[in-house]
């Protein structure tokens, strides 16, 4: 293997999301990141130049790189999350490019669900506005570990340090109140290219990294050795062949933690305890595996384990049938108390009843208000009752075993995204119970 290839293949992967409206220059920033990291190839640029010329625009419109669908081009809007890919010598990136308008909260929630970092964009002339607070709140709610505040259009405020410092201080304080501790603020001009990929000569007062440099160096992944092992069983592998007459392996992706041969594990929701007899990583036997590897686990005892079960070690969750969660409603049909739905949690899908819609949260002010139903893009608190017990962790502890979807059993539509347990690291001063009372509106 040549050393270049070795270096390229050993790089890490960062998934991140951008938030901000078109007016903040998000499309330009994404275009700038792709363009300046040399991830836009000649034929793509040529297509953009061609389309820009045909519309009578003088300069290539980098937003055309990201607005892919016919309806989007016709109407000049972005209707859904798109995923972009680019790479540097140090890291590979998957960017969830999410539209930032108020009616698209669900898209930012979608993009943030897999992101390890969120870039919140503000216009330096406007500072922290309602929308900025919404983006920060969604990042906090989805437990995105790292947040970057990109203060854009610094060229339009004479690259003035006090403007940047004031916005950064206000945002950091707000994010801190939401429980987001890792905030890095970068003053940029996406249009002029200041501090996006190249350091800016116009802002020598800024000593921090450029946006790309930060994206390249922010630590990715958590430390699996500090988390309890969680292994949702996806599929039972039983070759029943002459070569493997007795092989019975439980296939899945480790959601968190480390598993070793010999570990004592509990199979949930039944609660049987046994030990790990062997671990195979995609056909090769090993003694240790860790999240997020896809593996196959063999158990010492021949007990009943099937798709939907959770093999867990360390402190194991108590299976429950009553679930309290913060949810983001994704579908045009409202979610109402009394609705019968399907709940998909890890590899397990069960019937569930929406017992109660507690309240909805105004995502701009974080104020709860009573709600009989949740409409599309609304975030609220619900209580569910499931037909079978679920081995749920709190979302704050585990994004993978604390999250779930609600699905319409009639047509299979994805209705709602759910996060078990407390929202916003406890920052939301929500009253417990009695949602009918109006004295906290």
């Amino acid at each position, binding site marked *: *293997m*040549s050393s*270049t*290839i070795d270096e*390229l*293949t*050993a790089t*890490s*992967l960062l998934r991140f999301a951008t938030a901000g409206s078109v007016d903040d220059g998000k499309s330009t920033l994404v275009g700038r990141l792709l363009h300046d990291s040399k991830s836009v*190839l000649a*034929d793509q640029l040529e*297509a953009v130049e061609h*389309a820009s010329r045909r519309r009578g625009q003088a300069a290539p419109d980098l937003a055309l*790189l*990201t607005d*892919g*669908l*016919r*309806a989007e*081009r016709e109407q000049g809007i972005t209707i*859904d999350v*798109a*995923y972009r*890919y680019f*790479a540097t010598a140090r890291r*590979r990136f998957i960017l969830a490019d999410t539209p930032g308008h108020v009616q698209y909260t669900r*898209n930012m*929630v*979608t993009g943030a*669900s897999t992101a390890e970092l969120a870039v919140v964009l503000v216009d330096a002339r406007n500072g922290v506005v309602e929308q900025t607070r919404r983006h920060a709140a969604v990042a906090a709610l989805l437990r995105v570990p790292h947040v970057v505040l990109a203060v854009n259009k610094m060229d339009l405020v004479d690259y003035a340090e006090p403007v940047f410092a004031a916005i950064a201080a206000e945002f950091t304080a707000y994010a801190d109140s939401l429980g987001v501790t890792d905030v890095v603020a970068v003053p940029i001009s996406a249009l002029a290219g200041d501090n996006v990929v190249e350091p800016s000569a116009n802002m020598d007062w800024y000593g921090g990294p450029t946006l790309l440099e930060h994206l390249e160096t922010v*630590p990715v*992944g958590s*430390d*699996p050795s500090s988390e309890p092992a969680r292994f949702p069983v996806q*599929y039972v*592998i039983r070759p029943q*062949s002459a070569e493997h007459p007795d*092989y019975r392996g439980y*296939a899945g*992706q480790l959601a968190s933690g*480390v598993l070793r041969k010999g570990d004592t594990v509990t199979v949930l929701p039944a609660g049987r305890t046994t030990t790990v007899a062997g671990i195979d*990583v*995609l*056909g090769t036997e090993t003694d240790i595996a860790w999240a*997020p*590897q*896809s593996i*196959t686990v063999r158990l010492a005892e021949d007990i009943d384990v099937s*798709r939907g079960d959770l093999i867990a070690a360390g402190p194991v969750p108590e299976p429950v049938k009553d679930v309290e969660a913060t949810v983001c409603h994704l579908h045009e049909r409202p979610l109402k108390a009394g609705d019968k739905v399907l709940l*998909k949690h890890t*590899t397990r899908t069960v019937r569930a009843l929406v017992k109660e819609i507690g309240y909805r949260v105004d995502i701009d002010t974080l104020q709860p208000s009573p709600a009989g139903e949740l409409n599309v893009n609304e975030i609220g608190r619900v209580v569910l009752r499931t037909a079978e017990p679920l081995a749920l962790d709190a979302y704050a502890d585990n*994004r*993978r075993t604390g*999250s*779930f*979807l609600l699905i319409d059993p009639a*047509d*299979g539509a*994805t209705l709602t*995204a759910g996060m078990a347990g407390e929202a916003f690291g406890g920052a939301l001063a929500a009253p417990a119970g009695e949602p009918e009372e109006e004295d906290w509106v």
Partner: protein
Amino acid sequence: MTTATASAIERSDNPYALSHLDALEAEAVHIFREVAGEFERPVILFSGGKDSILMLHLALKAFAPAPVPFALLHVDTGHNFPEVLAYRDRVVAEHGLRLHVASVQQFIDEGRLRERPDGTRNPLQTVPLLDAIESNKFDAVFGGGRRDEEKARAKERVFSLRDEFGAWDPRRQRPELWSLYNGRHAPGEHVRVFPISNWTELDVWQYIERERIALPEIYFAHQREVFKRDGMWLTAGEWGGPKESETTELRQVRYRTVGDMSCTGAVDSDAATIEQVITEIAASRLTERGATRADDKLSEAAMEDRKREGYF
């Protein structure tokens, strides 16, 4: 444990860090197993191109030591590269797989499809594909589509619901969060599944290199009789090229994609090994589709329009 994993760990302070290829592999395997757990009759679309070869390799690893629990489906345009057909038959035999073939030629012979004036058969694949899905009652169809290929694909979900006509409606896609994939569908509907959505062309080649996956010979530089049409080098052959006004010449070329001979162009290249191919791609200023696919140049939304009709 593979050597690439070992080298990734040595490089990093975090002993549990995964390289980007290991992360993509783990995710793709998760998707294969989700489909195996949730669907009745899945099938893998297999063209003999590198993306479908990669998918098959991932499926083999996902279910080891058991065999792959899916059949393969090849949509045969009748304009295939012979090397690719030979490769297809070799892997089917080697892994004891079942192969379904949906034949464009057969549909033309039976009068159910008409040849296009430009002779391109790529857009004609949709009809036999949907027919095969319907008649075999396939409910999940794995495709090797990658979001980096094309901007309409950048918006496609990993689990992409198709209606009873096989159509894709980008405005009615299900939001996809975390790694929770929703495969619910009504009878007659099916789900297209894209386990390598998040891979780029370079990732695919690096993984092929790391795993030492064999490919059809046309991916590597070789001497071939070609002629120029619409700025692309096409292979001369019985499919209908060259026309009288076009002249063939012998050139040193290779293919970046494998498709219908009438619309898949070769690139000038001396890259004869996987390592040389990777070096060439890393330096290329053209995307693979921009360099080699005529059908995407038909209009600004050519891919989106074909996908709406049921194309993969």
